[in-house]
Structures are given as C-alpha cells and as structure tokens.
C-alpha cells in the first residue's frame, strides 16, 4: 500500500515519466505498423548496352559465300573480319568490321580456333607444324624459291578468306601466331561450319606454314627441309581434304581475290562482290545479299515507272492523303509470283478505288523488267512493299 501510494503520489507530482514512456510506446507501435515492411522499389530493368546494326550491315556480316560447298543451316559471319579482330578476340561480328586487320591474317585462323578452344590448337600446332612450315617459308624466307612456293601460297590463302589471304603475304611479321593456325588445321571443320566450310580449312593450312617458321624451331627445321619440296601444299591440302576438297581451294582463291578488293574498299564493296547464296531463294535470308537503300529506291522507282504506264487514275485520287502500301511479290523473271495485296487501309474517300486501280495496274503491267544488275539481290526484292504516293502516279 505504501509503495503503491508512493508511486501514485510520484506519478501525480511528476507525470512526465509516465507520459513520456507511454508516448514513446505509442510511437514505437505506430512505427512498427507504419514501417512494418519496407516497400520495395519498382523493378528497374538493368540497362544493357546495345549496338545498333543496319539490316545491310547484318546482311553483309551474314552473307553467304559463292564458293561455299554447303549451305549451312546456321550461317555464321564471314571469317575475314574475325581475323582482323583476332588479336582482340572480339565477337565475330565486330571482327568483320575491322578492315585494317588484313595484315594479321594469320590470326584469322587462330581466332575461330581461339574462340572454340584456344589451348588445344597450340598443342596441335606443335604436332602438325611440320607440314605447314614449308609452305610459309617459301614465300617469305626464300625469294628464289618463290616460283614453286607462290603457287601454294596463292592457292592456300584464297581458300580461307579472300581478304585475309590477300594480306597474309605482307604480314609475315605476325608469324608468332602461326602455331595457332597450325592448330587450326586439325580443327578446321569447326571454323568452316560457321563460315564456309570448304574455304576455311584451306586458308588455315597456308597460313600456318608461313607463320610457324619464324617461331618454332621444329617448324623451321621442317621448313628448311621441306620448303624446297613443292609437295607441301599437297600435304596440307590432303590433310584438309579429309574435310575439304582440294578442288575447292581454287574456288576459294578466286573468292579471296574479290575479298581483297572488298577489304581495301570497305565492307559494302566486298559484300556485293562476294555475296551470294548458292541456293538462290535460299533457306536462310540472312545469307542473301542485301540491297542498299539507294538500290532499293531505284528498284521502287523502276517498278513505279512501269506500273504507271498501266495506271489510270480513278476520280478522287487527288483527295487521297494516305499512300497505299502495295505488297508485290515478284519472281526472278519479273513476273508476279502472287497477286498484289494492299497492306494498309484508310478512311480517305477514294483510297479504296485508288488502291484497287493500282492493284489492277500492277497485275496488268506484269512481268516487270528488273535490270540484271539487281539479279543477285533477288532475295531482297522479290517481296517488295511499294508505297504508292498518289503524286507519283498523277505526275
């Protein structure tokens, strides 16, 4: 009782502590309720660096090789670009863009290998260097021998990748890389499937020979003994032949020459020069050569001109503000592969009649004459969307 009364008296005289304690308890409870759980931030996507690439760039990267023996279901970028980037070990696509790389051609072979399994190639290189060294040395080390050697060199370089091959000669200094190339030879099947199977194996062989001599003593020894003998090229070819046909090498060489030009002038030039799909309306559009914007415009104009001849303007065309988009499917000879379709619609009065007369005109004017220069791009123009601005046809 006394304690209780003392407490009561204290509370009455000094109510602060009680008030403060209860106040804090209340605030704590309120805090627990209000902050019972932190509200998570709205999910924010991490930004990923994206490189923009035009369709033509992509097409160039993925273009097929005329000399390819097979059309691969899973096309990969050409190796020539990769070779340039080989030192940096960049993505194949990036490598393709670097034109200056040509001097490092030897690297081209290494790159594909490096990407796949760098270490194994080296080991293989050691084992296999013997065949390669002779080839390499002749061109570089022995000027007098050049005559026999040059042939092997030429034959070999073109096959791998035109651009690279052309440049390999000037690049001898890069020999250190040869071991990789030597390695690549055993592995050629891998690189080839990605790019062009036949061409790749061959280039690898020539390169290893050139590069290896300087670096590896064994290679040098081999070279010293073998360089003289012309059969060397045959050896590599044979080795590769298991996967590559020696006869392909010549084709490869031809393509290489083109590639060289392309490399010197730029990607686009090389594309048109070497682009092509063996299968025509091929299984993969990515392998088909692409029209440049200017070419595309030119074809569009050509078609419009031809269509215009059969076109009679229906009444009310002047009021049509929306240009109909007509999808025209052409076959190789310029005839219509399918009836043209109007791909858009509009509330404009006269739009329907205009689009309809346009469609009739397109049907009437077939077949169309497509200049031969555009034939290689058939894949790109066989399915065209023509934006038919009324002004173009009234003019």
């Amino acid at each position, binding site marked *: 009782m006394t304690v209780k009364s003392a407490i009561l008296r204290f509370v009455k005289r*000094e109510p*602060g*502590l009680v008030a*403060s304690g209860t*106040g*804090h308890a209340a605030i704590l409870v309120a805090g*627990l309720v209000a*902050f*019972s759980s*932190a509200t998570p931030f709205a999910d924010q996507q991490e930004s990923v660096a994206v490189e923009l690439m035009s369709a033509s760039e992509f097409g160039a990267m993925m273009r097929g090789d005329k000399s390819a023996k097979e059309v691969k279901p899973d096309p990969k970028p050409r190796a020539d670009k990769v070779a340039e980037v080989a030192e940096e070990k960049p993505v194949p696509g990036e490598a393709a863009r670097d034109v200056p790389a040509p001097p490092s051609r030897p690297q081209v072979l290494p790159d594909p290998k490096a990407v796949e399994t760098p270490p194994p190639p080296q080991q293989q290189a050691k084992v296999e260097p013997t065949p390669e060294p002779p080839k390499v040395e002749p061109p570089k080390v022995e000027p007098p021998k050049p005559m026999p050697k040059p042939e092997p060199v030429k034959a070999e370089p073109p096959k791998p990748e035109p651009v690279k091959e052309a440049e390999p000669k000037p690049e001898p200094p890069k020999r250190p890389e040869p071991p990789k190339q030597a390695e690549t030879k055993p592995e050629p099947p891998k690189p080839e499937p990605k790019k062009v199977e036949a061409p790749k194996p061959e280039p690898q062989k020539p390169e290893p020979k050139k590069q290896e001599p300087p670096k590896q003593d064994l290679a040098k020894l081999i070279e010293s003994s073998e360089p003289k003998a012309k059969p060397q090229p045959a050896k590599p070819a044979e080795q590769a032949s298991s996967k590559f046909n020696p006869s392909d090498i010549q084709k490869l060489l031809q393509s290489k020459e083109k590639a060289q030009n392309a490399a010197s002038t730029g990607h686009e030039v090389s594309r048109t020069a070497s682009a092509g799909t063996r299968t025509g309306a091929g299984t993969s559009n990515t392998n088909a050569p692409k029209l440049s914007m200017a070419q595309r415009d030119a074809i569009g104009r050509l078609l419009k001109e031809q269509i215009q001849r059969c076109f009679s303007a229906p009444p009310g065309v002047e009021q049509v503000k929306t240009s109909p988009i007509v999808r025209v499917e052409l076959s190789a000879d310029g005839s219509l592969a399918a009836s043209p379709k109007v791909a858009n619609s509009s509330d404009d009065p006269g739009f329907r009649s205009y689009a309809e007369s346009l469609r009739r005109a397109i049907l009437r004017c077939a077949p169309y004459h497509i200049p031969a220069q555009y034939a290689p791009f058939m894949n790109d123009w066989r399915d065209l969307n023509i934006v038919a601005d009324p002004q173009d046809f009234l003019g």
Partner: protein
Amino acid sequence: MNPAEVTQAALPHAGGGSLLELFWQAHIVVKLVMLGLIAASVWCWAIIVDKSLLYARTRRAMDRFEEVFWSGQSLDELYRSLHNRPTQGLATLFTAAMREWKRSFEGGGRSMASLSQRIDKVLDVSIQRETERLEARLLVLATVGASAPFIGLFGTVWGIMTAFQSIAASKNTSLAVVAPGIAEALFATAIGLFAAIPAVIAYNKLQAEAAKAQGRMETFADEFSAILSRQIDERVAA
C-alpha cells in the same frame, strides 16, 4: 558465390526492414546505442512534460499571489495564511522575507539596523532556490540535445563498419547484401535525431520560461524589499 544465391540467402534476414528487424539485426554495440538513445528520449520527454506542467503551475501561482498581494490585504494576515503551507514562487519569497521581519521584531526591535540588508539577502537566497528548482534537470535536455546526434552517429559508423566487414567477408557487393546493414546502422542516427531534436527545442523554450519566471521573482523581490524597508524606516523614526 553467385550473387543471386547470396541475395536469396540474405533475403530471409534482410527482407522486411521493419523497425524491430532493423534493431534485432544490429550489432550489439549499435543495439546498446539505440537503447541508450531511446532511454534518453524517454527521459527527455519526461522532463519536458514535468517542466511544462511545473512552469504552468508556477505561473498561475504567481498570478494568483500577485493579485492577492496587491489587493491591499494586510501583509500580516497574508503571512499568517501562508506561513504554514508549502509555497512556491513569489509566495515563498514573501514568507521568507516576512519570517525574517517577524523574527527581528520579536526580539524587541533590537536588530533593526541592518534588517533591510538581511531581508535583501533572504530574498536573494529564496530567488536562487526557486530558480534552481525551476531549472533543475533542464541541463539534461541540453546534454541530450547536443550529444544524441553524435551518439547516434557513433552507432551508425559502427554499424556501417561491421556491415562493410561482412561485405568483405562474403565477397559480395550486391546492393541487396549491403543495404540491410547500412539501413540498420542509419537507424541509430535516426533515433539519435529523434531524441535530440525535441530536446533542443524544449530546452530553449523551457530555459526562456525559467528566465522569465526568475525575472518576475526578482522584480517582486525588489518591490517587496522596498515596501519592507519603508516600513522599517517608519518604525525606526517612530
């Protein structure tokens, strides 16, 4: 370790982020700091409440007393009604001075010479005591207000230190791993500010009120002293 795995592993502990979770995850030193700061906050608010009530009471009492004092009532009667009761503020001054006055005259008027000085002294002492009573514990507020942020900061620094040690140990810098430790560390500073801000504001407010009350008492003491010294002079002359 895969960051995703670490995140997943850390989530059960770090997930909620409620105040209690923040507290329980904290290092023992940080916990002590938090508890100390909460106690300081409770104590501060207790003082604030008590002092506010006390000053309000004192002010009312002073008003009442002054009303009675200047109502013309006889000082002797007023003293008789007050001297047996506990008093505060002006009434305390009045009773102390009157007690001294009465004692001087009970002795037969022999000690009239320095009575005025003695009364002044008595009033001064009374004012001092009253002021002390009013200002008691106000310094706690000042201390808490000045030091709580630093104490909280200490807890935060300690917490972040241990958090970074944990990060180093787990070799993972994912934000999900880092954040809970830093959040709980910052919680210490939050509590420190929570205690300090009201303490500083209340200290200034209460200090001003105490000074006002003291001034009022001094004024009254001067006036009362003047009245008494006039009475003394009249009696001596008589």
